[in-house]
């Protein structure tokens, strides 16, 4: 797969952005993400009364001069986060090369934003009931670009079952960062247990749906034997014969909207950010507009 998106120019444009994560995460020491906890950075956060045992070097003497009371100056803390990117590698994602490139590019872009922000990144490739982690935890641009080079060569095949594969993921920390799930969510399997697992791990979750225009508004009609890309045989139950009329196409579009709404409602009820993208939408627009609007980058 030759991904035209993943060029130097593409990544250089991303240099101006950074991931904006929730402040209630704990993360690891050494990152750039400000969190709610007070730490040793130079950025003032608050005052509090001096208590016995506190470091007297942190007493604000100017304030004492005016108020004759001891107050400590508190500073914000910055942490390193672990960004997990779960990429749906089923056949449905790879059948249309454009869709696969789009998904990989999104994953790479988000990974880059994390790396650039001194965060740790791991790519989890979901296929056949497993979550492969071929690159391990990536820190630093060199390792990242090496991984991206491999990412472009992955094969999209078989089925993906989020419900069972995400909980099997290695290195799932707790409350330590963002989990991004990139998929078309066109699956028979129940993906919700996987998402619930991430929430259980108190991770911030971002779900990105990638669909092509044809998947949203099919142009085909008439009597068709629809072959599912994930079906192994011709007589698989997923392959269906259907006479597609104009009214059916209208109903299908309606159903697509309802499905997206359903996912969106599910995510909203759990504090998950959900974004649905069309592959015809320029990826820069997605990152610089949609993610900004969703307050995921700044």
């Amino acid at each position, binding site marked *: 797969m030759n991904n035209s998106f993943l060029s130097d120019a593409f990544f250089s444009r991303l240099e101006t952005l950074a991931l904006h994560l929730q402040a209630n995460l704990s993360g690891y020491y050494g990152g750039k993400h400000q969190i709610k906890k007070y730490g040793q950075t130079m950025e003032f956060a608050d005052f509090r009364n001096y208590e016995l045992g506190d470091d007297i070097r942190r007493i604000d003497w100017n304030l004492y001069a005016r108020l004759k009371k001891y107050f400590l100056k508190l500073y914000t803390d910055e942490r390193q986060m672990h960004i997990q990117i779960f990429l749906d590698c089923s*056949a*449905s*994602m790879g*059948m*249309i090369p454009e*869709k696969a490139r789009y998904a990989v590019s999104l994953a790479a872009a988000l990974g880059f934003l994390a790396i650039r922000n001194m965060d740790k990144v791991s790519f989890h490739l979901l296929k056949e009931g497993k979550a492969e982690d071929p690159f391990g935890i990536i820190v630093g641009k060199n390792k990242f670009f090496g991984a991206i080079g491999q990412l472009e060569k992955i094969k999209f095949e078989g089925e993906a079952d989020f419900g069972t594969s995400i909980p099997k993921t290695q290195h799932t920390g707790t409350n330590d960062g963002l989990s991004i799930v990139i998929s*078309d969510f*066109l*699956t*028979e399997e129940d993906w919700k247990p996987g998402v619930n697992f991430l929430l259980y791990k108190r991770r911030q979750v971002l779900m990105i749906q990638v669909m*092509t225009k*044809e*998947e949203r508004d*099919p142009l*085909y009609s*008439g*009597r*068709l*034997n*629809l*072959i*599912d*890309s*994930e079906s192994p*045989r*011709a*007589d698989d139950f*997923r*392959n*269906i*014969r*259907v*006479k597609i009329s104009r009214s*059916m196409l209208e*109903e*299908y579009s309606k*159903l*697509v909207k309802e*499905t997206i709404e359903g996912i969106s409602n599910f995510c909203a009820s759990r504090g998950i950010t959900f974004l649905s993208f069309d592959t015809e939408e320029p990826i820069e627009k997605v990152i610089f507009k949609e993610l900004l609007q969703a307050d995921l980058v700044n």
Partner: protein
Amino acid sequence: MIKWLMPLGLLGLLGILVLILIYIIRPKYQQKFITSTVLWRQLLKRKRKKLPIEPIRNILVFVCQALAFTSLALLMAQPKLFSEGFVNDETEKIIIIDSSASMLAHTAGDPTSFSRFDRAVREVKAHIDEWLMDDDGTISIITAGREAEYAIADATKEEYTDVVHTLDGLKCSYGTADIQGALNLAEERLFINPAAKIFVYSGTDLGNLGSAVTVRNLANIQNEWNIAVLGCTVSIEESEYVFHVEVGAFGRISLEKNLYIEIKGAENGEDKTFDFPKLYKKVAFDVNSDNLDYSDIQTITLRATDPAIGGQEDWYFSSYAEASIGFVDLEDSIDEDNEFKVYGGVKDKVKIQYYSSKPNIFYYLSFQYLRDPMSKTREIQFNRAYALSEVQNEGHDFYIFEHNLPQNIQSGNAPKDGVLIFSDPNDLSAYGVELGDSVTFNGLKYFEAGDAHPLLQYIDPHTMGVTAYRRITSYDESFVPILFCGGDPVMLVKKTETERIVVMPFSLNLSNLSAGTNLTKFCYNLIQYFMPLTLDNYEFEADEEVNVNCKGTTVTMTDPNGKADTLTEFPATVTLTELGTYTFTTNFSYDKEAEVRKAFVHIPAAESGLFDVEAMNMKLDNTEVWEELGEDLFLYFAIAMLVLFTVEWCLQFKGI
């Protein structure tokens, strides 16, 4: 008998049509690879929930294929739906024997010779050994009489004696033959066994009936000829009975014969009957010339006053009991048509007595008007009793009492031998009818109809009306109200074995009945209803169905052989099967002499013609050849189609 497997070719073509139809209606699906069918499947599930008929439509092709599959399987199985099985047996013989009266013909001049019918039976018997024993076949015998029917069916050699007994017991009828019906029966058999052979024994030239039928014409132009009295009509010309006799000669003959007429029981109004001597007239027949149908039919006119035949000018008569017409010294082929008897010369007398306390001429005029049109069959006598002393209590068929009744009648001492008609009576309590007050109207009040009744035939009750009538307050259950006025019954009828009464509680003077034809029609209906003719005609063909009516209680029918049968429900329908004179005796419950009427039964005139030609519009052919070819070809066709179907199904299930 079902024969939908025949012809097989048609069924095969239908099978092809079914296949074509299936492949036409069978949807063609193009393959389309898409990323996921999840949403499409969800959509179809939703649609199925909305439209429960969808699954049925989806299996329509499957159902059609299953039907075609079943048809082909049946075609291969060749199920026998015939009740007796489909056979191709040349040893089956179907014998049709014409048993019409013409088959009675024997050699002219030799009454002891065998008739055509006898010869037919003998010929069949002569073949039994060959057909049953040698060929080991079966025989069915159909007799074509008035109706075609099997005498014996599918007899095998084990039933040899039954066949012989059946043939010995066969009798020739005196009527016509239903050859067409017999051929239809044989044709049904031919559907089961197209190779069966049909033999028709008849004296009539039936033409070519097809390859399956062999016609044996038993007519013998050399030895057979017939002279017959075919019929007779009687007319009254200048007050004299004239007999128009139709006679015919059939065969190669040229001769002269004496035709006689003998009239018995003649009456000239003097209450005395006498018999005329036989009168003779020579009739010359010549059918030797270019007469293709060998017949010479003539109409001979005979009258008793004709001196040329021995009659006398003063031999007039107003009625006669019997006239016999026939040929003298005739030894032809059919003896039964040499004499003809004519009855109907005695008219039914209808005697009416009219008494009124305030007489009018309405009834008189009405019956008088009916005399002429009914004169052929009835003699109407209308007697008016001008005074009480002239009122007779017996001897009439109708007793009309108008207005105030004679004392004895009022007290219930009415005549028993006739119909009582009470017109505007003053008191009928002795007869079970109570009369109340008078109802009067300023103008005519028209009647309303009750249930349809023979007495009101040809009459529209709504055209009859009165200005006054006596209200009938109650009446015996045996009376039937047939006319109403303002809801009150204004005409009651009673007809039982002992009493026949008509009650009209209004005066003809205060009604419009006599102004038009309604009263005349009513009087006509009175005669027809209470005094019907026993028979409508007095000469019938053998096997003819006849309606018998009764003006009394029962009719005893005696056939020419003296066998009597009593009829009690009328009109009765009887079939006259014997030749000769039938006697119908009407018996009365009251003291009245039984009335005797006679009718003559003769063989149908057409049967006297010995050499008729009657081409049947029918062809019965043996068709065993195509059957074998067609069966094999279509069997293979069905097998091939079945295999193709199976392969297709397998491929479909495997999803290839």
